[in-house]
């Protein structure tokens, strides 16, 4: 009889959870179920904040490396104020707990080691962000939309995003070859076709420069390799000024590049192009490209 009653209870519980509209999604650790609409959300990567901003949800805490300007201005305008919970690599679990969240969104690449601890604080949705492609981040945004109870809003937003990107693509020359990279003091890292920026460039009907062997999204590149890749347009996010690109421009070999001959070297904001990896960021990137490619 006990077995029978436990069946009954299970059925009732299941039925009940269906009535209260439990949402079940697949995250990087399996299934994730939530049966309420979260109000106090903490995100541990910028791309998740971007996804929340897309459906007008404000997180109460962001792992922003204690520098609010690292979150895109467009996103900041939507979500308003938040509490910093420390660095993305080692967020402070104490602060997270003290904020009493009812949902935490974490990155599988960075936060897998503390997944169990985070779960003790609040239900934790763990998704890829750091190694994510453009398509993957849209998918992640869809999942986040479902979990925060804004599925239809998110689907509309994603649809709108698609339209915006198509509109932008129409205004852009088809198949122009665009390469994005970030420049530091002593190194240039190209974001290849596998990277987030590469995905956005493809989605806009442009092509990525051929960077050869593709096994990593970011590739450190010397001037010699850059000459070989020789892209039509080169967009650089400078982390420091003067960066290595400024040094290279003074070298005779630089003039060999198509970019130098046609003056197709442009500066872009590395926070938008490299760190954010979200819907809003992709649209901003599209606008940047329109400004750049239609400048003539």
């Amino acid at each position, binding site marked *: 009889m006990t077995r029978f009653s436990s069946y009954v209870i299970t059925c009732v519980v299941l039925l009940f959870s269906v009535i209260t509209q439990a949402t079940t999604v697949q995250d990087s650790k399996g299934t994730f179920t939530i049966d309420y609409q979260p109000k106090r959300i903490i995100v541990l990567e910028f791309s998740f904040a971007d996804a929340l901003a897309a459906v007008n949800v404000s997180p109460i805490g962001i792992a922003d490396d204690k520098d609010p300007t690292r979150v895109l201005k467009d996103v900041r305008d939507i979500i308003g104020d938040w509490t910093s919970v420390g*660095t993305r690599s*080692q967020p402070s679990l*104490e602060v997270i707990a003290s904020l009493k969240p009812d949902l935490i969104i974490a990155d599988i690449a960075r936060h897998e080691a503390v997944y169990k601890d985070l779960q003790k604080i609040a239900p934790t949705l763990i998704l890829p962000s750091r190694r994510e492609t453009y398509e993957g981040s849209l998918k992640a945004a869809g999942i986040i939309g479902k979990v925060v109870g804004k599925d239809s809003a998110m689907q509309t937003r994603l649809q709108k995003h698609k339209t915006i990107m198509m509109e932008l693509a129409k205004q852009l020359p088809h198949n122009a070859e665009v390469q994005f990279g970030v420049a530091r003091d002593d190194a240039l890292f190209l974001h290849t076709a596998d990277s987030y920026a590469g995905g956005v460039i493809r989605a806009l009907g442009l092509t990525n420069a051929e960077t050869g062997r593709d096994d990593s999204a970011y590739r450190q590149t010397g001037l010699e390799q850059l000459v070989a890749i020789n892209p039509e347009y080169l967009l650089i996010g400078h982390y420091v000024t003067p960066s290595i690109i400024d040094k290279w421009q003074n070298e005779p070999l630089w003039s060999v590049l198509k970019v130098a001959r046609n003056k197709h070297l442009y500066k872009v904001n590395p926070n938008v192009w490299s760190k954010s990896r979200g819907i809003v960021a992709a649209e901003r990137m599209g606008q940047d490209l329109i400004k750049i490619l239609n400048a003539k």
Partner: protein
Amino acid sequence: MKQSRPFPTLITGMLILIIANLMFGAVSIPLNEILKGFQQGSDNYFTLHEYRLPRTLLAVLVGAMMALSGALVQGVIRNPLASPDVLGVSHGAGLAAVIYMTYFPASSIDWLPAVALVGGLLAALILWWLCGQSSSAIKLAITGVALAALYASGVDFLMLVKPLEINNALLWLTGSLWGRGWHQLMMILPWLLLIPVAFWLAKSLNLIHLGDDTAMSLGINANKLRLVSLAVAVGLTASCVAVCGPIGFLGLVAPHLTRKLVGGRHQTLLPATMLVGAILLLVADLVARTIDPPIELPAGLMTAIIGAPYFLWLLFRTK
């Protein structure tokens, strides 16, 4: 009993630091709230019971074990500049961890401690295989250094070839108590059995300081003692590194500091150095968490920053 006086002070200091570690952090909890915090369901239950308490206990254990390991190594090698680092254990563990992180980025991070532990023990075996039983202590140390250099160059090479994983790897290689909880504490508990073994060796370690021959005439097999002591040191270091990453300088500085306090007799030195090590790591982790909240620095960083200047000062003074 002049030598035993530091113990009450050290123990009191450690207790105060334990309480301070529970109270302070990104969010301060007043003293009267702390006891309440341990009851399930209270406001600070997670912060105190699930987070700060295991982390503090882990700091105590890891600090004590690393310091003990350092005292053993310095005792055996008879050189104050030796440390568990010269056995190549932490570098071996680091190499294993980095290989795991770069080549199996998709696999679960839960296996990392086990991989690092195997790497550390393997490194010790290689050292033993190269040196055998007959090598002099100093030669053993230098061989360990050379092996460590080899592992370090392997780590550098991997991080440069696979730049994507650099930050995670670097963070691990600096040694941190961030995100470590009851689970890691349980992993380290069995290794505490090595501590009584170390104490049992204390008396023989005193004699070995008189020179191998003298020790031999007093009925101690220097080679065997060396082997056992180093094996204990390896076990202590490897287990700590597996859980927290290589926390540098602790094994070097703590025994020095303790020798100043209680003198060189190993019967008092070994327990005292454990207390000092625990205190050092507690301070380091407290500072790392509170210096610029909510940013957490790796504790390994703080032990280096706190320990290094003191170490230099000490070395210049003793010359």
